[in-house]
């Protein structure tokens, strides 16, 4: 393990980070959208979303990544690897996030809504100013949990040739025939990434608690 190897590992960590980051951003917002649509109970659309959520949660990430990447040329779509990877990760995490958001919806107290409407708030104002902030704080642990799962599951995208953090360890070990040092280094980098994520969660929770007082 020389300086160059560390540089390659950091490059891999960056790839893992930005691809997972984009997928998480899409997943959290699309998950909220799907949860809202499902709570609206629109016939046909609801069944469709239930089917999507079940399918996406039941499909292993590696299978999904390969399926999207390999089936793209069949439909005449020119999908590059990064887009295929982001699409697959986002499809996967959106389904889980939608369930987390939905749980927050279901557990939201009716009394607050009645009180808000009695005060003359419209449904939109009530959602924006009362419901969403509380949903956010109650969902945050679940969402961050799912984010950390996604980051740790992201080596699945290496199967279509993206050089993420785990793939870099394979590349280094393929030349040195000594896999342990790069794997330990990669584990350290994963821990740093997840550690930062958890720290951000703690900060956000602190801030939310202060606002709620």
């Amino acid at each position: 393990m020389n300086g160059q190897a560390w540089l390659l590992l950091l490059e891999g960590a960056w790839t893992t980070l930005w691809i997972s980051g984009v997928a998480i951003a899409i997943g959290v917002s699309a998950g909220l959208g799907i949860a809202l649509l499902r709570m609206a109970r629109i016939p046909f659309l609801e069944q469709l979303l239930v089917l999507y959520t079940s399918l996406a949660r039941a499909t292993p990430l590696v299978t999904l990544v390969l399926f999207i990447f390999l089936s793209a040329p069949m439909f005449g779509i020119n999908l590059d690897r990064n887009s295929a990877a982001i699409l697959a990760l986002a499809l996967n995490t959106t389904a889980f996030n939608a369930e987390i958001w939905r749980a927050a919806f279901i557990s939201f107290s009716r009394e607050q809504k009645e009180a808000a409407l009695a005060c003359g708030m419209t449904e939109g104002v009530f959602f924006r100013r009362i419901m969403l902030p509380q949903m956010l704080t109650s969902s945050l642990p679940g969402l961050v949990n799912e984010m950390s799962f996604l980051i740790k599951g992201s080596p699945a995208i290496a199967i279509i040739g993206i050089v993420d953090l785990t793939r870099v360890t394979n590349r280094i070990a393929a030349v040195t025939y000594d896999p342990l040092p790069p794997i330990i280094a990669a584990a350290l980098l994963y821990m740093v990434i997840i550690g930062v994520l958890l720290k951000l969660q703690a900060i956000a929770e602190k801030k939310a608690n202060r606002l709620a007082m």
Partner: protein
Amino acid sequence: MTPPGITTAMPIHGFALLRKLVFAGLAGSLMAAAASVQADIAEVKERGYLSVATEDDYAPFNYIVDGKPEGFHKDLLEDLKAYAKDKGFDVRQEILPWTGLLASVSSGQYDMAFTGALVTDDRLRVFNFAPPFASAQHFYVKRAGDHSLSDIASLCGKTAGLQAGSALLARLPELKRMMADAGCEIGNVVEYQSYPEAYADLANGRLDYVINALISVNDLVKTRGDTFAKGIAVSGDGFAAWPIPKKSPELLELITGFMNQIRDNGRLAALQTKWFGEAFPSMPKEPITAVDQFHKLAGME
């Protein structure tokens, strides 16, 4: 990946759906096989480039040093580019891990695999192989200093490591026959996702020996001669060659022409010596397209 309490009914439900998905996927890929228009030369020319899939962890064929491609194929790619330029198109290299590589080539993401793929019966159903560029007779590797392993009979009952889905695994029956002739049976066979893991397990004693192709074994022993030692051949002859989808016969012809050119001008022998430590002058000069032909060339009765 599920928050507790929400998904208790999942397993049964999920399994049924997964099965449906698998069927849908199978139907999809069958349709793709039947309907897809493969990129044969006409399409390559129209597109302006030939896309070849290479690997990143397969020394000395294709590997990465300090973030840059290195190896036999990296050098040969320059020649292929020059050859293709005369024919009016460019060559683009894509780097993939082996696990997804052949599937990507057969599905049409890439035109051909430009790496040390070994010829097997199963692969010949989907791919034609360009004239081989290296021998791939299978050898076993043991720990350096392990004197209990020598001839075939000494391997009997010992634990072997191989790559899952590999050509090495496909030709294991030959070793089994050799062992039967020696009056014994093969021991446990452990399959690995890739060879570095198998070597690590050999080094720490979980395996007694690992089987790999000649060139890979030579490269391993060259780099880690302190830990590993080369054993004897455990199969008949084998070939490393480039797989080209059966649907692209014109491309196969073009690549055969390329092989003829580099064989005649001595470039092939030079690169073989540089990367593999020896030239292979007795390799077949025609492409391998059928199982019978492969068996005859490899001397598998």
